[in-house]
């Protein structure tokens, strides 16, 4: 049997070869210099579940807007079109994987961990005064998607990785490398590439356990690295492992945050986590 490669694994995933149509249409509309707000709002309004979710989001504490947001157009002006695209991406991906039966790991637990990492990354980006914080939410949300691919395509092999990790007291991604020759970060990166998502997202996902290796986007990688650690520390859901992954000190230095900002970050995470789980995971 030929050893499985990352590309080979992704090629086997027929159900997720491309991103949902609504995201593609929205992306096209946003990139088109001749399109306007009404066209974007029209695309969104075609999907009532998505519109409802986005309105709930615009009205949540995550955006702290002083008055109620009633329409999709208004939500777009508050959130911004690029940020909106990122949020639609986040919602679409969860939708894509929603109805897959859970066997080895709880899907709900997986998404809770992903949402927690997303929220934490967003909070860190806010502390650092990043211009577009929503893209950090997407980065956090998608960081472990490679693991989802692995246990959907190779459930037995994944079960063995979990066993090896427990037996040798290794972080799960190291057990993956030992057994498969690659880890879930590499799989996630390849999926982002296949979906033609931004390079920053690809590298952020690919390097979230080894942020020191991020050549072009070290801050993105550092942010998701720290966010993943914090989300695991508080055990807000799980993507299969039961331990906090190793901490790369450089990542913290890279972000330029101080230790006394950590309690603030944890508190904001706790504050927004429940709301986000509610909005993104309700059926």
């Amino acid at each position: 049997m030929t050893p499985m490669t990352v590309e080979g694994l992704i090629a086997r995933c027929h159900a997720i070869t491309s991103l949902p149509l609504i995201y593609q249409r929205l992306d096209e509309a946003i990139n088109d210099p001749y399109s306007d707000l009404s066209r974007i709002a029209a695309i969104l309004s075609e999907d009532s579940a998505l519109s409802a979710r986005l309105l709930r989001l615009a009205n949540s504490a995550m955006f702290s807007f002083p008055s109620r947001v009633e329409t999709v157009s208004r939500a777009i002006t508050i959130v911004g079109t690029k940020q909106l695209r990122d949020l639609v991406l986040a919602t679409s991906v969860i939708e894509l994987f929603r109805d897959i039966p859970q066997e080895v790991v709880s899907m709900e637990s997986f998404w809770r961990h992903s949402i927690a990492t997303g929220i934490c990354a967003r909070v860190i980006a806010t502390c650092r005064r990043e211009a577009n914080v929503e893209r950090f939410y997407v980065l956090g949300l998608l960081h472990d998607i490679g693991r989802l691919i692995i246990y959907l395509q190779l459930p037995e092999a994944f079960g063995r990785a979990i066993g090896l990790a427990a037996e040798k007291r290794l972080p799960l991604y190291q057990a993956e490398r030992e057994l498969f020759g690659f880890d879930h970060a590499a799989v996630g990166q390849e999926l982002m590439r296949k979906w033609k998502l931004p390079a920053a997202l690809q590298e952020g996902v690919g390097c979230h356990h080894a942020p020191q290796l991020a050549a072009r986007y070290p801050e993105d990688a550092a942010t998701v690295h720290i966010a993943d650690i914090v989300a695991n520390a508080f055990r807000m859901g799980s993507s299969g492992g039961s331990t906090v992954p190793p901490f790369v000190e450089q990542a913290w230095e890279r972000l330029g945050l101080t230790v006394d900002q950590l309690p603030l970050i944890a508190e904001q995470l706790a504050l927004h986590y429940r709301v986000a789980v509610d909005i993104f995971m309700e059926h």
Partner: protein
Amino acid sequence: MSTNKLQPGMVLGADVKDLSGRLLLNAGTEVQQQHLKVLRTWGVSGVEVVGEGGEEPAVGDSHTVAAALSPEALTAIEGEIEKRFVAVTLSHPVMVALVALVRDDLTMHYFDEALFK
């Protein structure tokens, strides 16, 4: 002190900023009802107040709560922390701070559980 304990009439001992460093309220402001709403909206958890003595932890009163837990609960908490952080070297100050926060979080959970048994 924790924002939850803030009362109108108290005076702010330091500038209050939001997460990104933007100034919300100036030092010396006498706190009024509408200020409390502002603080809540912007997610400010702790402020400095003139006249309060010493540093109060902004993350709940878990120190007093820990004293109320049984030895078994305290051991279980430490065991859980050891298990979670087994792959992490705990020398860096941010990891030390993170462990402290997780300990607080677990302490509050155990306390809540004990209350509702």
